[in-house]
Structure formats: C-alpha cells, structure tokens
C-alpha cells in the first residue's frame, strides 16, 4: 500500500452538518462540489452531482389562464428542500438541467399552452404546443442554465384561453438537476 497526500479524502471533508437549516457546500481540491444539510442523510456530505435533484408535479385540479406561476403541489423527490412557495431556490452555483412540462385539456382546435421557465422572474425558456382537437396537449421546455446560489426558478404556465391543467406526475411536472460547476 502506497502513501499519498491527504487532500480531500472523505475524512477531510468538513464534519457532518448538525445545526442550521440551510444547505452547506464545500469544494474539494479536485474541484468536486459537495453538499450537506442538517437532517438530510445525517448531515453527511454528498457530491452535489449525486444529490442536488428535485422533482415536483401538479396533482390537484387547476385552470390555466394567461401566464402565471404554477404551484406544483406534490413532491416526487426533493431531499434538500429546493422547492418551496412555487419556486426552486438554487442551493449552489453551477450548471443545471431544468425541465418543465405543462399539459392542459384543450376544448377546441387552435388553442395552445406554453411551458415557461423563469429565473429570478425573467423568462429563460419557453415551449408552446397547439391543439388539433378537444383533448390533452403538452409542451415540454428543456433548458440547461448557469445559476448563482439563491437564484429562483419558477414554472410559469400559459394558455390561450382558460383551460384545465392535466395533472399527475407524468403530465405536468418540473425538475431541477445540478450537473456541475459549469
């Protein structure tokens, strides 16, 4: 067994986080970003690329009219509590995947819906789908964006006329996934 300098071997990570309510981050000498939060995995450090992920979807009925922030009312996975008050809050700076799919039930042809991604209240992504019949349509907005810690990401739903959102985990949902430092 050889000996090497002890840089950021796990033993050299900061101690588990056992107090406070915010996500803590640490960058090791290889540039890997680690995160920890009191009460999550016992406060232990995990690589941000493994851990920073959230998915929420719309489960309850709601009507979409005009453009408005959509509240996603049900969580699929969000270990670090990124989503609150209808917004994802970015815990550490970096490069992220953001997906927002919106489905609505059209009542006639020619209607449309748009899935928009807003960052700090500014539009950063949009996808629009048109109806060809009185049935469900969906728009899937997929973006990769660089964020600063504290940036807020909203799923904004828009429709040409008032239309019922098509709920459930596979129809109307949003995800935020950390991919790296960018």
């Amino acid at each position, binding site marked *: *067994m050889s*000996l090497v*300098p002890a840089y950021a071997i796990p033993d050299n990570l900061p101690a588990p986080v056992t107090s406070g309510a915010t996500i803590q981050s640490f960058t090791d000498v290889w540039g890997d970003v680690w995160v920890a939060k009191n009460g999550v995995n016992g406060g232990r450090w995990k690589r941000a690329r493994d*851990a920073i992920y959230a998915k929420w979807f719309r489960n309850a009925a709601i009507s979409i009219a005009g453009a408005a922030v959509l509240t996603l009312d049900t969580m699929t996975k969000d270990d670090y509590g990124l989503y609150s008050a209808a917004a994802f809050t970015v815990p550490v700076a970096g490069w992220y995947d953001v997906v927002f799919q919106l489905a609505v039930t059209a009542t006639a*042809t020619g209607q449309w819906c748009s899935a928009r991604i807003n960052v700090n209240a500014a539009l950063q992504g949009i996808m629009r789908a048109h109806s*060809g019949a009185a049935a*469900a349509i969906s728009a*899937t907005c997929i973006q990769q964006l660089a964020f600063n810690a504290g940036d807020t990401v909203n799923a904004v739903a828009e429709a040409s006329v008032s239309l019922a959102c098509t709920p459930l985990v596979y129809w109307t949902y949003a995800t935020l996934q950390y991919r790296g430092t960018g």
Partner: protein
Amino acid sequence: MSLIPTYAIPDSLPPPVISGTTVQSFTDVWGDVWIAKNGVYGGAWKRARDTLYGKWYRNAAFTLPAGQAAVPLDSTTRDPYSMYTNPAGSAAYPPISGLYDILWQVTANATASGQWVQPRFFINGMLMGVSQSYASSVNAFSSVISQQFVLHVGDYIQFYDNASTALAAGVGAPGYWTYATVEYYGTG
C-alpha cells in the same frame, strides 16, 4: 500535510472484469460509482457517470399503429453496456441503481390536421412519462418527454407511442427524429 493510505485510487480499483456477462459495479471510498463489464473497454473500470449512457433510434421505415404500441428502436448510437436488450419490447435495463435521465421523442408524418401522437414510457409496466402533440397540416410533427427517475437493478424502461391513427414514423440516421436516451446521473 498528513499522509494516509491510498484506498480507492484508480490503481486500487478491482482488476478488470474478464469473465461473465453482467455489468459489475464498485463504489470507492469517495462515493464514486465505477462500472466494468467483460469485453467493454477491455473490462476496465470507468466512472458510471462518465460512461453509462445509451441512445437508440428508429432508422428503418415504421408505422406507428393507431393506439398504444411499443416502438422498436433498430439502431444504436451509443450503448457500450448494452442496456437496450429487448428491441421487440423496446426495453432498456439500467444495470446499477441510481438517478437516471430518460428522454423519448417520437416524430410522425401527419396525413391530415388534427392527428396526434403521444410518446409514452413505462417503468416496470407502469406509465411514468407522457406528452402529446397535434398536427396542424400534412407534415412532420414531434413530441418529446424528458424525465428523471431513481431506478434500481432489475427495473426496465419501455418506449411506446399512442397515436390517433396509423402514421408513418419520422425515421433515419443519425437519429434526430425518433429516438430515446437513458443516462446515469448519479447515486440520487
């Protein structure tokens, strides 16, 4: 600066895998997941996040039937660890547990306005992803799903479509019309 033993420095990884047919995995002391498979990169270990990726597409002419049916993807862009082992059922099998990104796009050539396609994917037979698009003219139109899920060894993903009427799929290389990808993101 202290000195400590070298645990899972890459040269301390298990030896290359030179027998068997399944993907082997190893988690080092830093929590990084490595995989290896006999016959792939000489059985050498690679980080799962770097290497565990598959992309498949439809190249040959194919008719999307009316209603729901599997879409066999007949061509592979990349799949070093052979996740897509059941083309007839259009099924991919993640070899290790973790968080995966799944992308599924279907393109059809409409013969009239008002027709629609609905790409769907199932995990272990349960509908987990769907989207829907309509044609507004006699032309190609597409619909795409992007989802992430925590999957486990033995889980499988199936790529289906549900169409309003029988429609010719958009096909061809290198797979920009009708294709699927599965990518390992991390432990989740």
